[in-house]
């Protein structure tokens, strides 16, 4: 089985958030509304952050899209009391069994990347929106943790490109097999520009960033 990985080129990323929008639509991610979002209850399997360093006038802003990193050593899997969060042996994807999750949120606390989201409310779809749900992706009930799956439903259909990558207008995202030395992803992951977030924690994310301006 391939070892799926993603590369995001920060030089190319324009911060348009198409990846987030595509992900919401593809994965039936719930809209929580502006009030709940204000309270920190918004769900973004792929969230675009703005990292700002320095103070005016010497400011540097970096845009960082963040899916789940599908770590080689995932801190979330270790702490799950019921095995609802698990790492799939064959391709190393970190996945969530929604029907087993007890909603203790220990995985969300343990993930250093904030990639896990809790369903604070029962799902309610805006009028008409429910017609646009993706039948390939399970709807999640209230009280459980969910996160990016690298669009596993697409991978299983032999479509090795997650919705976020497909939607990226700047062609900033790459997806492929890390085990294949000739794949674009594995070559970019070995480039001198490649970096992973909080690498010193030893989680070994399988999402690589290509540094800006290098």
């Amino acid at each position, binding site marked *: 089985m391939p070892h799926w990985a993603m590369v995001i080129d920060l030089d190319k990323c324009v911060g348009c958030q198409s990846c987030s929008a595509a992900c919401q639509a593809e994965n039936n991610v719930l809209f929580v509304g502006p009030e*709940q979002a204000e*309270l*920190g*209850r918004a769900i973004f399997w792929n*969230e675009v*952050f*703005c*990292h700002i360093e320095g103070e005016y006038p010497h400011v540097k802003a970096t845009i*960082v899209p*963040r899916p789940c990193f599908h770590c080689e050593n995932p*801190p979330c899997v*270790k*702490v*799950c*009391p*019921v*095995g*609802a969060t698990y790492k799939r042996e064959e391709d190393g994807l970190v996945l969530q069994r929604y029907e*087993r*999750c*007890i*909603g*203790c*949120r*220990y995985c*969300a*606390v*343990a993930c*250093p*990347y*904030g990639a896990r*989201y*809790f*369903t*604070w*409310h*029962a799902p309610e779809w805006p009028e008409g929106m429910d017609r646009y749900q993706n039948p390939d992706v399970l709807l999640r*009930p*209230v*009280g*459980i*943790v969910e996160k990016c799956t690298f669009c596993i439903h697409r991978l299983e259909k032999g479509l090795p490109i997650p919705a976020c990558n497909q939607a990226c207008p700047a062609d900033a995202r790459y997806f492929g097999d890390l085990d294949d030395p000739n794949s674009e992803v594995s070559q970019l992951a070995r480039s001198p520009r490649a970096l992973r*977030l*909080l690498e010193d*924690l030893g989680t070994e994310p399988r999402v690589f960033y290509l540094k800006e301006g290098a």
Partner: protein
Amino acid sequence: MEREHEALLRPLEQTGRGFYLLIAILLAVIGWGIFAYFQQIRLGLGVTGLSRPIFWGVYITNFVFFIGLSHAGTLVSAILRIVGAEWRRPFTRLAEAVTVFSLPFGAGSILLDMGRIDRIWRVLLHGRFQSPILWDVTAVSTYLISSVVFFYIAMIPDIATLRDLYPHAPAWRRQLYRVLALGWQGTEAQYHRLERIMGWFAVFLTLLVVTVHTVVSWIFGLTIVPGWHSAIIGPYFLVGAIFSGVAAVSVVAALLRWVLGLQRYITPRHFNYLGQFLVALAITWFYFTFAEVLTTIYGAEPSHMAVFWAKFREEFSWAFFAMFFFCFLLPLPILVWKRTRTIFGVVVAGLSINLGMWLERYTVIVPSLARPRLPYEWGVYTPTWIEWSVTAACFAGLILLYALFAKLFPVVAIWELKEETPTPSHAEQPKPAEA
């Protein structure tokens, strides 16, 4: 013969209007809490103030707090038993009752925090021992069962006394005493066996005190969350647990002494001892707090410093400094000076320490979550009325169980008092001799 301990039996025989009023108030608070909890079940955890990244709040704080509270009972009844401290005798039962009645609310707080309480059985079905939560389930349930058994077997001689004393009590009560007395006859062989079992149980429970609260701390300490991920968290939690527990026992003892008129059994001497013990614990607590803060700020790793500043001068500074005031600055002078180490002084210090220790749990848990390693998610946590109502119901439940217990059983172990003799070697006198 039992009339000698009139004061201990009076609450079992007479019930004033105050008792019913107390029960009514407690039931009202519990009812309101249950209503709030049903709102939470119906609408999801969104009704709390929790959010991302502050996934845990008041419920988890309560969990650690109640488990901590429970350590006092075991400490007073088991550890002081092992070291042969005779002054513990009037205290053992009322302290162990704090353990037995606060533990369900500790364990229960975890359940209240769960997003899917309807799936609790999956923990039994799919439990993974890789997760510290499973260690906790194991440790806390072992502790709960052991404490209940220890508490109960130490009551058997007194229950037998009650059985013989109240042949005309209502049928349910006669039945209760008869069944719980397990046919106790008070023979020498029975006393001997009971003492032996309790001796072993005391050793076992002492070990459990250490493991249980260390395991509670490891839920936090074993993750790589800044502010939690340290080796000190185990002993720090343990000391905090004993600190708040002993403080709680002091308050409970003073309350029972006052309400039930136990002046003969619980004397200023006891509060003097408890006060001195609390001084030692306060200083130990300060030592751990200081060591933790110094290690953080000297190393000055940015992710750890973010948590430190959140506690020290940002939105959690009120809790941090209130904790320090209530755990250390207020109680220490009261307890150090002999003139203020009175019953009233110890009660004030005890209440202060418990408030401070609740805040300590809060400042350990919430600020670390509010400052994740990646600085992109920020959350503000303000607990809602749902969380406060459920918390109030937990405290009311603890008091209710205690009040009902005090109505049905003597809060001081009568048979253990009889064993206390002026001679120091009580071990050589296994039999009930008149005190």
